[in-house]
C-alpha cells in the first residue's frame, strides 16, 4: 500500500490505487524489463507501421512493370533492386508486410476462436463430448501441419484466402488442447464451486470466470503462433498454393525469383530477410510474454 501511495503521488494526475498494481501491470513491468522481448515488440510495431503506411512510403506501384528495368541491382532509384518484370522490389517487400501480417494475425485469430470454443466444450462438459473432441485433436495433430495445410489447399484450390483458412484449421488443436487443459484445472477451483453454489449459470461461469483465466496461455501461444502462421503462409506461397500473381507475397516472390538467384541474388535476399525478421519479432515477443505472464517462471 505504501508503494501505491508513493506511486500515485509521483504522477501528476491522481491514479486510482488499484491501477498501480495488478496482474496486467505486473506483467507489463516484467515484459518491459526483458530487453529481447521489447526488441521484438518494437520490431512488430515497425512492421505494422510499414504495412499500414505501405501506399504512402512505397516509391512505385507494386504491380507496375517497367520491362527495360528488368533485374536491376539495388541503386538509389530502386533500393532493393527490381525483379524479372522490372517491378520495384522495395515497394513489393513493403506491400508484402501487409499480406504476411494479415494472414498471420487472422489465421491465428480464427484458430483461437475455434480452438477455444472446442477446448471449453471438451473441458467443461467432459464425458463423450470431451472424448470426441480430444480424439479429433489427436488425429489432426497426427499430420505434420504444413502437409495438412497443403492437402486442404489442394482440395479447395490455391488462393490466399484458402491458405489462410488451411493454416487456421491445422492450428486449431494447439489452442484447443491448451484451453481444455486450463479449463480442466480451473473447473475444480473453489471459486468455481462457489459460483455454482450461488446459482450462477454455466454460461455465466464460462464467460465470467473460466474464459478470462484461460487468457494468459492463449495470448502467449497466439503470439508464437503468428510467427508459425507467417512461415506457413510463405511456404504455401512458395509452393504456388497461396497468394497468386501479381500479389506481392514474400513466399511467392521467392519462388518467382529463385531461377535468377545466380544473376540477381537481391530478388531472393530481401523477401527472405523480411520473412525471417517478422517471424523473429513474433518469436522474441512471444518468449518475453511467456516469461512475463507465466507466474511459475517469475521466481
Amino acid at each position, binding site marked *: 500500500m505504501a508503494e501505491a501511495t508513493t506511486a500515485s503521488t509521483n504522477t501528476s494526475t491522481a491514479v486510482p490505487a488499484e491501477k498501480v498494481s495488478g496482474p496486467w501491470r505486473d506483467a507489463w513491468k516484467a515484459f518491459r524489463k526483458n530487453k529481447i522481448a521489447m526488441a521484438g515488440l518494437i520490431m512488430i510495431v515497425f512492421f505494422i507501421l510499414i504495412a499500414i503506411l505501405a501506399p504512402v512510403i512505397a516509391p512505385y506501384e507494386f504491380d507496375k512493370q517497367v520491362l527495360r528495368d528488368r533485374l536491376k541491382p539495388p541503386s538509389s532509384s530502386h533500393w532493393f533492386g527490381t525483379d524479372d518484370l522490372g517491378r520495384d522490389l522495395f515497394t513489393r517487400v513493403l506491400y508484402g508486410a501487409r499480406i504476411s501480417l494479415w494472414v498471420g494475425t487472422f489465421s491465428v485469430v480464427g484458430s483461437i476462436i475455434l480452438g477455444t470454443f472446442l477446448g471449453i466444450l471438451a473441458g467443461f462438459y467432459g464425458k463423450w463430448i470431451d472424448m470426441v473432441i480430444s480424439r479429433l485433436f489427436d488425429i489432426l495433430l497426427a499430420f*505434420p501441419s504444413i502437409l495438412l495445410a497443403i492437402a486442404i489447399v489442394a482440395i479447395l484450390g490455391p488462393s490466399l484466402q484458402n491458405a489462410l483458412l488451411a493454416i487456421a484449421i491445422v492450428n486449431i488443436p494447439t489452442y484447443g488442447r491448451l484451453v481444455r487443459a486450463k479449463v480442466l484445472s480451473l473447473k475444480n477451483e473453489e471459486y468455481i464451486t462457489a459460483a455454482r453454489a450461488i446459482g450462477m449459470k454455466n454460461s455465466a461461469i464460462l464467460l465470467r470466470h473460466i474464459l478470462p483465466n484461460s487468457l494468459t496461455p492463449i495470448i502467449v501461444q497466439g503470439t508464437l503462433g503468428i510467427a508459425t502462421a507467417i512461415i506457413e503462409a*510463405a511456404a504455401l506461397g512458395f*509452393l504456388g498454393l497461396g497468394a497468386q500473381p501479381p500479389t506481392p507475397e514474400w513466399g511467392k516472390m521467392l519462388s518467382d525469383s529463385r531461377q535468377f538467384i545466380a544473376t540477381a*541474388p537481391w530478388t531472393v535476399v530481401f523477401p527472405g530477410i523480411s520473412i525471417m525478421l517478422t517471424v523473429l519479432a513474433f518469436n522474441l515477443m512471444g518468449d518475453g510474454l511467456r516469461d512475463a505472464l507465466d507466474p511459475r517462471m517469475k521466481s
Partner: protein
Amino acid sequence: MVPVLVGMTIIVFSIIHAIPGDPAETILGQKATEQSKEALREQLGLNNPWYQQYFSYMGDLLKGDLGQSIRTRVPIAQEITPYLAATAELTVAAMAFAIFFGVNAGIISAWKQNSWFDYICMLIALIGVSMPIFWLGLMEQWIFSLKLHWLPSIGRMNQRDPVEAVTNLYVIDSIIAGRWDQLWTVCRHLILPSIALGTIPMAVIARMTRSSMLEVMNSDFVRTAKAKGLSQFIVIYKHALKNAFIPVLTVIGLQTGALLGGAVLTETIFAWPGVGRYIYEAISSRDYPVIQSGILVIAFIFVIINLIVDLLYAAVDPRIRYR
C-alpha cells in the same frame, strides 16, 4: 493409437470427397468427355455410396494396396518406395546434424551459462527457429554451390554413373557396391539439404537441452557427483545429461515429425526425389490418389515415430517402466 490411425484414414479418404463440385471434372479438367469422366469415377469407385467406398478403401489399405496413380497408372505402393527411401535418407541425415549440434550446443551453453558462447548459441538458435527453410535452402545454394562451387546444388548423386539401387538409400547402396567415389558424391549431395532441413530442429533441440540441463545442474545429485571428484566432463555428459534428456527426447520426436512436413519444401528446392516432392508433383497434376496415399504414409510414419519416442522414454528413464 488405433482410433487415431482410423481417424487418419477417414481424413485422408475424405480428401477426394471434399473437392467442391465434381471430383472427376476437377481431376480431368473441364474439357474432358463425359465418357472419360465416367470411367474415372468407376475407377475411383465414386459411384458407390460413401460408406461402401470407405470400407473398400480400408480393405485395400489392409492388403497394402495404396491405389493407383492417375498420371503414371502404376500402383502407388510400388511407386512410392524409392521416394520413401530418399526422404528417409534425408531425414536421418538432417536429424543427425540437428541432434549432434543441437544437443552439444545446448549442453555447452548450460555449462558456460551467460558466457559469450552461450549468448551466441542462443542467438543462433533464435534466428534458427525463425528461419524459413526454403529461404535458407536457396541461400545455401547461392553461396555454397553457385558462388563458391563447394557442393552440388541439386539431386542425390552423379546420375551419369549410377550405383545399382538395392535399398534406394544411396549411402548404403554405394557401400554395398563398394563404390567409394560415389559414396563421397552422395554424401556431398546430402550436406546442403540436410543443413536446410535440420536447422529448425537443431535450434529447438539446443534451446530445450539448455533449459533442461540448467534445471538438472542445480540438483543435489550433480553436486554429489562433483563432490566425489568426478571430472566435469563425466558429471555433465553422464550424470546430468541422462536426467535432462527426457524433454529433449520429446522435442526430438516432435521435430522429426515436423521435419517430414518440411521435407516437401527442402525436396522441392534441392530437386530431391523424396515423398514430399512426390506429393507436390501430384498436386500440380491433380493426381488425388497419390496425394491421399502420400499424406497417409507420412502421417503413419509420424505416428510410428511418436510411438518409438514413447518406448524410448522407458529405456532412458527406468522410473517410467515401473509406473
